[in-house]
């Protein structure tokens, strides 16, 4: 079963135009704030030369390195319409031409919508060559995201700042089972 965003399909030219045009975030730095038990989040407005309401959203695990960098376009969808996932599940690219082979797109990857309004994922050569740095350094990811999304192309890319990460060291984070007391529970 394939879910579609019909609004994007209907206004696909607008969707493409908004993603490809030059966009700006004014903030020099974006400070993450706690959101629930496991995440920190923040939004910032995106400025551009027409009236459609757009904003940037970032979320990052408090005790892990996974983060997401997202563009929202309110008139098209209440979910992000273009985003980068540093980690997490592989995406199933529904492909009527090539079938199953090559349909699994692992993280890190970009998510976007095609002209049918179907969400797809893609990995770039840059991602293939920088997987570990992209997964561990949100600001490295932010530089790349802004470049791909045409945000602050010729100006300072906002720095994402988070509070201190206490109690867990960076090299432990990727090991998803480390520090979880499974056997105490049984």
């Amino acid at each position, binding site marked *: 079963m394939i879910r579609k965003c*019909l609004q994007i399909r209907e206004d696909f030219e607008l969707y493409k135009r908004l993603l490809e045009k030059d966009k700006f975030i004014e903030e020099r730095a974006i400070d993450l704030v706690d959101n629930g038990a496991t995440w920190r989040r923040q939004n910032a407005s995106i400025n551009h030369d027409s009236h459609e309401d757009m904003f940037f959203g970032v979320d990052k695990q408090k005790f892990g390195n996974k983060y997401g960098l997202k563009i929202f376009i309110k008139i098209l969808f209440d979910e992000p319409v273009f985003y980068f996932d540093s980690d997490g*599940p*592989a*995406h199933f690219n529904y492909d009527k031409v090539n079938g*199953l082979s090559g349909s699994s797109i692992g993280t890190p990857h970009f998510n976007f919508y095609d002209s049918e309004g179907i969400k797809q994922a893609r990995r770039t050569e840059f991602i293939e060559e920088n997987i570990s740095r992209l997964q561990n350094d949100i600001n490295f990811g932010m530089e790349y995201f802004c470049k791909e999304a045409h945000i602050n192309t010729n100006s300072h890319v906002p720095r994402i700042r988070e509070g201190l990460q206490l109690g867990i060291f960076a090299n432990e984070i990727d090991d*998803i089972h480390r520090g979880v007391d499974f056997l105490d529970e049984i």
Partner: protein
Amino acid sequence: MNWKQVFEAVKSDFCSLMNFKVRGDTLEVQTSLVTLGNQFVSVFISLKNDVFIVSDGGWIDQNYYGDSDRDQIEEDIIQRIESQLRYSYKMNQVRAKTGAIFNFKTTSDIKLLSLTAFETAHFVTQMANARLTHYAEDKIPAERQMFVSEVNSILKFQYGSQFSANDSLDAHIGELGNIKFNAIIRRPAKTSLLMYVSGSTHGNFVRSAAVATINFQIANKDWTARRFNKVAIVNSQAPGYNPERVHDYLRELREETSTDLLDFYKNQPNIVELIAA
């Protein structure tokens, strides 16, 4: 046909979807199971004190597979589904120091490891899908909107300004003039009145067919509108469509239409010609 060869090809494509990532002392197995949100389900395996632990990695709890907005009624439904899934799959839960809840199973027999991973992966798929599904009645009609929008976009492309969605016959007075047809196509030679039949549940589908029938009946009693084309487009992929249970309703509808009922998905390649016929 060499069916064994066909089977081998299907099996090979299924299996080649699987992948893995080593994360420190934990193995991530990317399975070939996909959620309604088009994400592959991963399970995580580690070994401690000669016991294999297979978990969801805390990914359900942290919404890696997505989630939808819910009111309290839907929240209660989800809770009931989740507790039954936990019970059926005999899943354990633990809260990590990071705050994330892990669902997991264990086995100390390596022969049973794949079974444990298989069960965990199916559990994750069903949990993710339960969270991606809408339950409240007022949220479901989105399905009908999707169908309407899908049909309209094709017809609008074909007929341009002759096509008008959700319109009525203004020149007529009385009740006929107030009836909203899903679409009217005003070609110089002939006007077509269109009704779309769809529904998220059996009840909604039947109501949709009944409204289409009545609207055409009223049009057929009008001395000009009776000459117009009356076309019903049926959503055979609607969740509420069950041919065995709507047969009589659709036969009544067919009595009022000018052509056979059009199955949108079966007739899609030439739906435009069929409407114009």
